[in-house]
């Protein structure tokens, strides 16, 4: 995993962990990433799949990927 991808995985997990108390944590995580990440970052995390991601983060990425 490249340094940048590792960074993105950590960011996604951090976002998911801090949004755990939202009514739908995966949806909130997906929304956050949609609003603040640039297209290449999103593409990189989509291509990464679920590797290294927490359960909520993985669900968020999966949902976001399906949406876009």
């Amino acid at each position, binding site marked *: 995993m490249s340094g940048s991808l590792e960074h993105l995985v950590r960011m996604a997990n951090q976002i998911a962990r801090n949004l755990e108390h939202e009514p739908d944590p995966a949806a909130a995580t997906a929304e956050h990433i949609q609003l*603040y990440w*640039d297209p290449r970052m999103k593409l990189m995390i989509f291509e990464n799949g679920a590797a290294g991601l927490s359960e909520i983060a993985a669900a968020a990425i999966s949902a976001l990927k399906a949406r876009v």
Partner: protein
Amino acid sequence: MTYQPQSDFGTPESRSTEQVTLTIDGREVTVPAGTSVMRAASEQGTSIPKLCATDSLSSFGSCRLCLVEIDGRRGTPASCTTPVEPGMVVHTQTPHLAKLRKGVMELYISDHPLDCLTCAANGDCELQDQAGAVGLRDVRYAADATHLGQAKDHSNPYFDFDPSKCIACSRCVRACDEVQGTLALTVQGRGFDSKISAGLASDDFLGSECVSCGACVQACPTATLVEKKVVEIGTPERSVVTTCAYCGVGCTFRAEMRGEQLVRMVPWKDGKANRGHSCVKGRFAWGYAQHQERILKPMIRSAIDQPWQEVSWDEALTHAASELNRISAKYGKRALGGITSSRCTNEETFLVQKLIRAGFGNNNVDTCARVCHSPTGYGLKTTFGTSAGTQDFDSVEESDVILVIGANPTDGHPVFASRMKKRLRQGAKLIVIDPRRTDLVRSPHIEAQHHLALRPGTNVAVLTAMAHTIVTERLVNDAFVRERCDMDEYRDWAEFVSQERNSPETLESITQVPASDLRAAARLYATGGNGAIYYGLGVTEHSQGSSTVMAIANLAMATGNIGRRGVGVNPLRGQNNVQGACDMGSFPHELSGYRHISDDATRRLFEGEWGVSLDAEPGLRIPNMLDAATDGVFKALYVQGEDILQSDPNTHHVAAGLAAMECVIVHDLFLNETANYAHIFLPGSTFLEKNGTFTNAERRIQPVRKVMTPLNGYEDWEITQKLAQAMGLAWNYTHPSEIMDEIARLTPSFAGVNFDRLDQEGSLQWPVNEAAPDGSPIMHVDGFVRGKGKFVVTDYVPTDEKTGPRFPLLLTTGRILSQYNVGAQTRRTDNVVWHEEDRLEIHPVDAENRGIKSGDWVKLASRAGETTLRATVTERVAPGVVYTTFHHPMTQANVVTTDYSDWATNCPEYKVTAVQISPSNGPSEWQTEYEAQASMSRRIAQAEAAE
């Protein structure tokens, strides 16, 4: 305008709403109750002679020059200490008063050097003026016993003290006490032996506790305390009101000039942020503007190991445009980006982000707020609906409890700190939440009721434990919450914070704050009257920076401390225009006024004005740009007024990112550290050389006015416009006012802002629009901007940065009073006498364990890198915690900080780095290599001699 001293009404304004009518010299005058006779007279245009009185200080009544006669009263009371009364009849000019005043003046002059013609204050001396006003023509007293011929104190780099010229009026002492709140000066001795002393008799000004704010110099009615520049240049002949370019307080000054030469910066009494006060930086540290290291000609080079070549503006800009276009064509438009500056004006910042969005064709624009207050924007927008603080600075005058968390205002925001300290001396209670024992915790006449010295990285745990106390002890302002907040969200939050795992007792092992202290602090904040929270980068620069901002907002809402004077949530912004840079659309996901780039209606508005199509996707943040650069897909960067190599975390990573780019354009005053990796250098202009506006931490938009011609030839907005034109954009602004007009057309919260109004009003606090035509000093008065206030559950998540056997200590970083940010400006002034190097503060126990003494060189190492600096052993830091500043490039504290960041905004986690300290006998390998590389990089090729 022609030079006129600022008006001085003699005593402070009364804020009473009751009006009193009296007669002065046969004219009726009506003033607020509590006004002095002196001020009432002055307001109707009658100047009563005075020496010890000035309207920035409480009346004192010592000089006996302002005597008046009042019908029905015996004697001749001092007009400065006599309040007006209804029906009072006052006479300010009578033969008896003239005789008394002349006698008093004669005594003063008998012990004053009669060197007016060669005195630095000739023509700007109140003693001289008053001698004339009372008609003194000769002095009958023999000069037997006098104070003449005493040694001058030249120790302060910015002002001289000549005791021979002192009239012992105590204005300097009172200014230090009342205005600055340092209490460094005193009157030593009594009667004829009275002498102004800075600290002990053995101290000079430099060696004393004086913080060089300049209040004493401003208050002095003679040349006893006088700016060295006035001695050197002479008295000013004109003045221009402008706004300071240092911290986010946004002090306004009169730039007092002789021709194009700046003589002095004098705080403007009508300035609504500073109310006539200043600090050492704004008042004195502006010499960098003419520093010999300033670059005045554009330069280019083919590679970063080559020397710079000076070129014409046309050549530099054509080359820059050509490179940007080449890279866009070769790598795609998303390979370019730019960084706006919180040190530049709103208009300049707006143009840079416009250049990137409309010219580069992407949203890869970010700003230095990324590394300071981006969590403030996120947190306050989420909870309240506005990415800004809620109060004006005047509001602190009505606070009963002041909670300062993660801020060191006496160093970082000194002028506001003085105003806060004034309120604390009046009896407001103080809670400080900070790992360090900052000066505010205990200083003259001030002592915090509670200092919660938490372990770095546990802000959220502390604030949640405070919320636990407030909710479980039923201290919530139920009426406020019911009326103003979303009740479902409140109930979720209240249930969460009430859990036992969030109690002060349970969290004590994590926060290291005794539960009883934390509970007491929470009770005080909730029940002590008007509670105001002030915070700084100790809140935002954490992995949970945004959560901490929201936890603060939760506390304010739960206790009803929002929407009126004396309360609120107040981010103390770091740089002068952090608020403005954020307002202007400098973030990659939003346009000016904090509207998301994906919003079709907003984007269409800008597209219509700019005549281009805008990318609907957010762009890259600074750390993401650097990641993309090391990945080989981000190739060009335009940096205006920032030095990311020194200011951003994990220097090695920043350097690697910059080195991987094909075109780095640095637009700055100096060859800063980032310029070591630049290919094009565009020389910038100082705040003294440009027109525009800054927006301070109160959302106050204030004019910046050009007082001299730019040494580099152009104001910064002109340079950005020329770059845009070179890239083919049809921009044709002729003045920054036109840029502000465009901002107002596009930004609802700025709809009513224009330069004419700013000239009339002095300043305006946004939002300024149809609903608030005169601006908005206090936000969320009748309701939150977002509708209902939003409580957010802020679960404490420990940082991934862990101490362990290799790195057992926690490093936190910050600022010192005399230096500013990366020091590019202040290191090039005489402020270096107070801080010539970054020092590492370490607790005696940790120092003892490592065999370290104060002054020793130590190695500071983390998993990111290592550097060396000298140690200061002090109990200001707790055991297990070390602290340093980041003002000097050769220390480069950010070699040590990591790339961990806030979960919501990527604001770096500067405040928590696991480190080890050990003795050192020389610079680190990085420092040696960096010094060589920086030296090589700054070479400028000699121009060829003309034939």
